[in-house]
């Protein structure tokens, strides 16, 4: 078990928090059927570690329905970004919790149906009244049953009633983008009901989560906040010796390193299996190791129990350079900011060196017992996103294609020839229901080539897509090495029929440097022309990270007036000849 700080620690830290002006902001609401003090403060402290300024509203005890239904409620006035609704089985079931078999089979089914409808109704109210994400906890299945060992022999027994309610909730909200079910039942099993639920606290003040476990709960709930704000690590950089296998390849040799299904090598074997699964869902893997390249490659290519294969890594830095230099190069080659990287290493000094020199990189020290490695990885809440898109699932393949492109770049004569060689095809599409999740994800995650860095949740994109005053468009980019997927986004506000405003304009870092952005802006200019618009007004709002897009507007012929950039639509923008542009679903 990874140890958390005590609740007292978080309560004290919360008192000392200072508000930073340039931090990300979030407003969270917590409403519950039981006493849940201390959770908000803990979340606030945890958010501050990620440089997030978190403000909160905690609803009065057991007033969650009123908070949702009444438009005069404190929660409604607070206008939260994310709301956590924490419910408990005991209060929902009332007397049925203690004696569910006072109801016959049909009555039990009806009871669950009614309870489900109560919750459904409440959440529908929420969706109508609030423009926020709602995270609802599901229901714990207690170990208790009045039927004891006969519980599992009952048709639609007490435990099955709760199980069925939980499944109904999952099904109902599977397709809804604003509601997520938090699996509190799994949380409860993970830490143990005996630990979480303390009768004295419960009887004393309806405290249903032991104080020591509030920080663990906050850790799990923080995943939703991270995903909401797009604070997501994109890449895991791994050391090799004593990280992916036990021992030192250069000293112990190929046959002696520990890796395989037997202990102690099975700790590394298990760790690699979890890393592989993360890679499959779109987290990029890379290596940063001080070793002889041939020794290390021999293990990666030939060791019978090496789960991670050479093609699973998008970048290999196996050399005798210092690790900070390697990390910087990895960041540059993969075009992933240092703050998108997690670095795993067993050497404390290396970890400290990276921590001090590159504070943006999250460092995980694996100097302890390797049997903890799988749990350390599973416990991380840094890889969450609100939706897993097709682009996520194909990411490693896309990065490998990128490496091939870079190789071609090295061998080409001029940049123009290189780009010509790539045979780039751009498909411009208007947003639709299918595209909104990816468009929202790009607005949340893109930092470097992003003119205004406006963040939009999926519902926002959906709303703008259906608003006749806006154009929400995106671009899919293909070339001879493969399909990079949807990687560019533009949003135009055309409320003023003479002057269109460029609300957002961004490009994923993967496709930067290929003049693709020009074809997108050319499309917008073209559309403006067709609609007899005279000017396009754009903005460059500088952030710490969007320097790569600083000169874009002037390069495209926009002229600066005060803090705005204006394009005279009677001009035309010449597109590089190597780009082939197709417009879809007009």
């Amino acid at each position, binding site marked *: 078990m990874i140890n958390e700080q005590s609740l007292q620690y978080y309560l004290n830290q919360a008192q000392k928090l200072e508000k930073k002006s340039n931090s990300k902001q979030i407003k969270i609401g917590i409403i519950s059927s039981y006493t849940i003090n201390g959770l908000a403060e803990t979340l606030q402290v945890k958010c501050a570690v990620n440089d997030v300024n978190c403000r909160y509203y905690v609803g009065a005890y057991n007033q969650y329905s009123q908070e949702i239904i009444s438009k005069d409620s404190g929660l409604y006035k607070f206008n939260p970004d994310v709301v956590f609704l924490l419910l408990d089985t005991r209060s929902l079931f009332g007397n049925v919790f203690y004696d569910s078999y006072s109801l016959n089979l049909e009555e039990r089914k009806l009871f669950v149906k009614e309870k489900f409808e109560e919750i459904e109704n409440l959440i529908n109210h929420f969706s109508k009244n609030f423009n926020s994400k709602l995270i609802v906890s599901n229901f714990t299945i207690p170990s208790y049953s009045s039927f004891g060992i006969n519980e599992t022999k009952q048709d639609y027994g007490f435990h099955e009633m709760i199980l069925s309610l939980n499944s109904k909730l999952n099904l109902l909200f599977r397709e809804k983008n604003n509601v997520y079910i938090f699996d509190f039942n799994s949380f409860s099993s993970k830490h143990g009901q005996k630990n979480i639920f303390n009768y004295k606290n419960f009887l*004393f003040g309806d405290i249903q989560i032991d104080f020591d476990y509030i920080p663990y709960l906050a850790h799990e709930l923080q995943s939703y906040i991270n995903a909401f704000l797009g604070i997501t690590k994109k890449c895991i950089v791994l050391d090799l010796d004593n990280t992916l296998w036990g021992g030192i390849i250069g000293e112990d040799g190929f046959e002696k390193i520990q890796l395989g299904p037997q202990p102690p090598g099975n700790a590394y074997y298990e760790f690699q299996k979890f890393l592989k699964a993360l890679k499959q869902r779109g987290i990029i893997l890379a290596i940063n190791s001080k070793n002889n390249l041939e020794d290390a490659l021999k293990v990666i290519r030939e060791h019978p129990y090496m789960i991670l294969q050479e093609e699973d890594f998008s970048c290999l830095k196996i050399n005798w350079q210092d690790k900070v230099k390697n990390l910087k190069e990895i960041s540059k080659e993969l075009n992933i900011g240092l703050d998108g990287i997690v670095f795993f290493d067993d050497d404390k000094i290396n970890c400290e060196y990276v921590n001090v020199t590159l504070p943006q990189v999250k460092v995980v020290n694996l100097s302890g017992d390797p049997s903890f490695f799988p749990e350390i990885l599973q416990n991380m809440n840094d890889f969450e996103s609100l939706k897993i898109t097709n682009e996520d699932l194909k990411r490693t393949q896309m990065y490998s294609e990128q490496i091939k492109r870079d190789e071609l770049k090295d061998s080409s004569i001029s940049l123009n020839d290189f780009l010509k060689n790539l045979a780039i095809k751009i498909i411009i599409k208007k947003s639709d229901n299918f595209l909104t999740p990816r468009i929202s994800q790009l607005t949340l995650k893109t930092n470097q080539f992003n003119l205004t860095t406006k963040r939009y949740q999926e519902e926002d994109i959906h709303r703008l897509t259906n608003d006749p005053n806006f154009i929400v468009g995106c671009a899919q980019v293909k070339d001879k090495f493969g399909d990079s997927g949807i990687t560019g986004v533009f949003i135009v506000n055309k409320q003023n029929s003479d002057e269109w405003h460029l609300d957002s304009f961004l490009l994923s870092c993967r496709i930067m440097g290929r003049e693709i952005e020009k074809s997108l802006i050319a499309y917008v200019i073209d559309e403006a022309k067709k609609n007899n618009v005279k000017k396009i007004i754009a903005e460059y709002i500088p952030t710490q990270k969007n320097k790569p897009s600083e000169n874009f507007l002037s390069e495209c012929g926009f002229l600066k007036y005060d803090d705005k950039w204006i394009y005279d639509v009677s001009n035309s923008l010449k597109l590089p000849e190597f780009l082939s542009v197709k417009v879809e679903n007009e």
Partner: protein
Amino acid sequence: MNKKLINLISKVMNIPPEEINDESGPLNVEKWTSFNSYVLLYELEKEFNQKFTMEEAMDVKNVADIKRHLQNHGIQFD
């Protein structure tokens, strides 16, 4: 022992130790909310390695009561 108790109360209630005396309790200390009472009880159990009964917990009205119950559990105060 007295100092240990006062420091713990000070930490939980987030008030300076010099503001705490035997009469301090929920009625005269603003930050001594019912939730902080639970947290204090919890921290006392951990710090002094004791378990309080419900009855003892509900009987606490001020610092003197806490001392009395701790003494009943064999904790000595100067």
